[in-house]
């Protein structure tokens, strides 16, 4: 028998074997593919369903919805500006507090800490991320807000009271409390993702800097942080995405007053918390539509922020994979 004939008979055996078991593989592949595609279907349904339900509000107010600040369910006049403002300010405040802490902790855990201490602290950071939002909210109402009212806000008012940010009566609950609780909640995400980005930086980077005589801190700053910069920005954006959509804890401490106020001591309102508070009370299609339009806006913003963040984080990981391969 020639080799050509042998290989022909072998391949025909393979083909017939494939034909015999083909239906099982095809069925299984179809199922798996269907499960994966259901995810895309789900997101599409989400957009269409919410857009449909938000239509009455969009028809009635158009783009005015985004920059007017009257929120009057009785008169059925809705403008989302106070909520957009509250979401942005509370999230920015949270970032101002959380970014330095999160990056610092990530550098500690990935670069500087003694090796034996890294796993337990990493685990604790993961546990902070696992604490349910409503538990943070409970703690915010009964511990954080009174502490801010009695100690922090009077002190801030006395020392920095000339700034419009720190004026007005200390209620405890308000924008400042929301920013702090958000910072506590997003800092573990920023820490965990930044740590992974730093660990993905190839060792050759560190060795090169150390070889040139850099100290450990200089190595971290020049070789590691600069290399991982886009990934670290991605980590911060992931934290921002969390902060924008965080609902329960913020609802419980922000004070829920739909006004645009400069002072951080004043109560505010966010997009997520107005949905949480008023959704079950919305009786008319227009009212419900206005709330769902806020939800749609929140969806769009978080999708953009998260997509950007993912691409940035993947860019560091991807570069590393190419180096290894």
């Amino acid at each position, binding site marked *: 028998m020639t080799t050509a004939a042998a290989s022909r008979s072998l391949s025909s055996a393979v083909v017939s074997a494939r034909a015999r078991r083909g239906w099982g593989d095809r069925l299984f592949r179809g199922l798996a593919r269907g499960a994966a595609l259901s995810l895309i279907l789900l997101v599409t349904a989400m957009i269409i369903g919410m857009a449909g339900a938000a239509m009455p509000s969009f028809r009635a107010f158009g783009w005015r919805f985004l920059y007017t600040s009257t929120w009057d369910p009785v008169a059925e006049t809705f403008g989302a500006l106070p909520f957009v403002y509250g979401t942005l300010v509370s999230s920015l405040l949270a970032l101002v507090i959380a970014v330095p802490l999160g990056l610092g902790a990530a550098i500690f855990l990935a670069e500087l800490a003694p090796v034996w201490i890294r796993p337990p602290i990493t685990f604790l950071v993961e546990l902070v991320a696992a604490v349910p939002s409503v538990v943070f909210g409970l703690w915010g109402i009964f511990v954080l807000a009174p502490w801010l009212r009695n100690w922090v806000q009077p002190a801030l008012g006395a020392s920095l009271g000339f700034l419009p940010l720190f004026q007005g009566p200390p209620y405890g609950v308000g924008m400042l409390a929301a920013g702090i609780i958000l910072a506590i909640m997003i800092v573990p995400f920023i820490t965990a993702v930044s740590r992974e980005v730093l660990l993905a930086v190839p060792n050759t980077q560190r060795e090169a800097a150390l070889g040139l005589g850099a100290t450990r801190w200089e190595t971290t700053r020049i070789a590691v942080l600069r290399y991982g910069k886009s990934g670290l920005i991605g980590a911060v954006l992931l934290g921002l995405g969390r902060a924008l959509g965080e609902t329960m804890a913020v609802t419980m401490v922000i004070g829920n007053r739909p006004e645009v106020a400069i002072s951080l001591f004043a109560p505010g309102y966010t997009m997520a918390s107005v*949905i949480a508070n008023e959704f079950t009370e919305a009786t008319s299609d227009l009212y419900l539509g206005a709330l769902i339009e806020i939800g749609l806006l929140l969806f769009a913003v978080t999708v953009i922020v998260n*997509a950007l963040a993912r691409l940035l984080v993947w860019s560091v990981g991807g570069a590393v994979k190419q180096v290894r391969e």
Partner: protein
Amino acid sequence: MSALTAGSALAVVLPLILLFGFLLHQGASAVNVDFFTRLPKPVGEAGGGMANAIVGSLILIALAGALGLPLGILGGVYLTESRDRRLPWLIRFVADVLNGVPSIVIGIFAYTVVVLPMRRFSALAGGVALAVIMLPIVLRTTEEMMRLVPASLREAALALGLPEWKVILRVVLPTARAGIITGVMVAIARVAGETAPLLFTAFGNRFWHQRLDQPIAALPLQIFAYAIAPYDDWHRQAWAGALVLIALVFLVSLAARIATRGRYSAVR
């Protein structure tokens, strides 16, 4: 600089210690047998418990698991096994983005697809909302864990003449089991504490639930309702509920951690 970064690491975990201390201090006294076996009492009557909420949370998690786990695991299988180049990338991306969508938005989604057609709040709607939250987490961890199974194992099974689907079901999935279970537990820990998507889907219930198409109580919802109410009795119950919830979440997280200790750290 070392000290500064150590300080920030401490600042990140300090709230956890403060929070846990306060929970133990305030809640431990109200966690007793009644808490786990009784229904909530009306305002002004001391005692009572959250039995209905605890059972409700378990039912909601089971519903979410029944809907979300098969889809998530099968989708994860697709991501590892597919030879297509573009679609898996897109699905991975959509999963990661969906994972970042605020849970309250997912609640609105469940409201539009389940509550509006059924014309009432229901356990089913809550289960759907939680399933959507679980799906991307399970999908991505299943994928990552299946990738860790050595190719030689797959090749050996295929060389024995097993069809691909049997190789996956009988060889690859069992090998990756511990890792996949970890993903499942991480997802359960996440949805167990979710409140926002349940506000207008499961809605809450002060009594035992009757059927799956009726509103149902959940532990996080009950904590929220008690926390914003002006009664001291209810605040105590809220602290106790929070203590039970956080203990549940931590135990599940810890179990997930232990299940994959050796393998997981080896990957990193």
